[in-house]
């Protein structure tokens, strides 16, 4: 006999183990190696301690003041130093951080911001298409107004894009609230007053509890019908 007797007991365990590890391997790749796990939460250090929580949150500056191309072009511009200087010529000029901003301005050298959200080159993305269709910034970037330092809140994987493209209604909102971080104001439901649009007054009426409540899907459905929205799932829409 070459092998001791206990081998008989070990063999089935090994076989089962091999089968199980095959399944586990697929799971590991699907779960731990997915962009959901690998990319979400990416938060690189920025050259200047600029805070969205302060500027977009506390000060309430509209996103489009700084990211001024976002509703007009494919690319969302990161503001040049000139934009900062609109205020910081007079605000907090003694701060060390602001001195860095000033230095950039006077030397005519851009601040080297580190890019956070990145799609691979083989994927095409267009901001203005999404903004004009009524997809708010927070749908894809999360609660920017609560971030001291920006991090990636969504996986930006193809599956993630498609999930919304297949069923966009729950993510659509009226144009007026496109940069609103918390929307709808009342949790997951609000009012629709007119056929065409939703005004600020409507939402106020909703908050006051005066109107019938609609779900986000219903409102989105109305917007989608009005604007004839039908996000493409063709490969060539995003891989051109």
């Amino acid at each position: 006999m070459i092998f001791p007797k206990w081998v008989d007991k070990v063999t089935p365990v090994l076989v089962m183990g091999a089968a199980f590890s095959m399944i586990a391997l697929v799971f590991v790749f699907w779960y731990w190696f997915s962009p959901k796990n690998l990319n979400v939460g990416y938060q690189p250090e920025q050259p200047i301690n600029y805070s969205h929580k302060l500027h977009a949150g506390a000060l309430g500056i509209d996103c489009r003041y700084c990211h001024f191309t976002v509703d007009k072009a494919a690319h969302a511009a990161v503001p040049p130093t000139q934009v900062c200087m609109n205020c910081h010529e007079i605000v907090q000029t003694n701060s060390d951080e602001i001195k860095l901003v000033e230095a950039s301005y006077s030397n005519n050298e851009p601040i080297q911001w580190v890019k956070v959200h990145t799609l691979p080159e083989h994927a095409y993305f267009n901001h203005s298409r999404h903004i004009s269709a009524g997809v708010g910034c927070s749908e894809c970037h999360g609660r920017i107004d609560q971030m001291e330092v920006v991090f990636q809140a969504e996986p930006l994987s193809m599956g993630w894009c498609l999930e919304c493209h297949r069923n966009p209604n729950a993510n659509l909102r009226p144009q007026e609230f496109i940069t609103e971080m918390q929307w709808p104001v009342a949790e997951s439901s609000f009012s629709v007053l007119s056929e065409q649009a939703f005004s600020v007054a409507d939402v106020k009426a909703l908050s006051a509890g005066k109107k019938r409540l609609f779900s986000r899907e219903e409102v989105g459905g109305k917007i989608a019908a009005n604007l004839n929205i039908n996000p493409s799932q063709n490969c060539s829409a995003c891989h051109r």
Partner: protein
Amino acid sequence: MSQDTSDSVALPRLVSGNPSFSDIARDVTAPTSGTPPSWWVIAFVAAMSLLMLYGVSVVWLVWEGVGVWGVSHPVAWGYGIINLVWWVGIGHAGTLISAVLFLCRQRWRTSINRFAEAMTLFAVVCALQFPALHTGRPWVDYFMIPVPNQMLLWPNFRSPLLWDLFAFNTYLLVSLLFWYVGLVPDLAVMRDRAKKGISKILYGVFALGWRGSARHWINYERAYLILAGIATPLVLSVHSVVSFDFAVSQLPGWHTTIFPPYFVAGAIFSGFALVVTLLIIAREVYGFKQFVTLYHIDTMNKFLLATGCMVGYAYSIEFFMAWYSGNEFERFAFVNRAFGPYAWAYWIMFCCNVFVPQLFWIKKLRRNIAVAFVISILINIGMWFERFVIIVTSLHRDFLPANWGYYIPTWVDITMYLGTFGLFFTMFLTFLRFLPMIAISEIMGIMDKANPHHASYKTDENATKQNV
């Protein structure tokens, strides 16, 4: 056939010389023990060199991209797909010999089945190299496998190329299992004959604790029969699916309903031809003349004749259909095939595959080792050109004359093709060195001595004498 027809039919003995059981075990395992003979070492070094050439070509291909191949517009499928189809075709003989002939109780298959199955496996491995590299980005080949992924993408189930993936891998898996199950009793023989510790343990692990009890044999026979049943449809399915790669497309010259049977016949044809080539070499160098008799070679050559006539029929009917269809593009494709710029390839194919095997109508030539050897090689050349003709001539002149071109392979194409021979023979020589190349237990089973009606069982002594 032996038991119940023993009185009425006299057959040649499949093993000549009447060796004892232990002689058989000793003779068959002889090549696996002792120092390897010098021809083996030389052949192995040659095979390894070719394998290295293959490695270098693959690295270059992956580094630079598939642009280093000769494929371009309009011939986007060149050597890669030709070699794929060729190797897979060769891989058909194994299952046919082992499964179909087993189910048909063709007992002459026992001395060649192990050999042919090993050849099948290695040929399929060679074939799989090409589609894996043809994707251009082999590191994302897992996209072809339906697993959950971040892209929410499944492979395109409407594509014959995907069917190919499943057909090949099913075939590889079933052939491997079939080969391995057949090997188990012989691995036990190897284990019991092994002297060194490591080889004892390795053979022991793979012999799965085989002791040769009656229960073992009952389970073994059942498993083997079931696997033979599973493998049989695969003989037809794999090359049918390969032919769909072409037949499902809309290209004149590819879009024909005859393709599946035509490809299967061609596959068996080329597979048997390579079995004959290798069998003759092994028979000569190992001196296995008592196991691989002239009767075997004769029978194999009859298969070659039959399948050669089938492909000849397919070539002709294709022309008839092109004319009969009245479709001018179809007609052009075939006239261009036989008389266009690639006419040389077409006529090499036609001569090697259709004319040459006709020599096998003559019994003398069927039983002549030298003739069989040369013809088997010519057939494989012819079958390679068949794929060349189908792929290249259909593509090189498509619907827009402005696109017409002439396909020329590059050195990478050629070294990769030669390199797969290195891969094949490295695996094959390793197999010859470490595993019994003839199924010992099955050979014992077809001996007269193994027959319960031994005394009344008649073999045709005359026929037997002729075979040695």
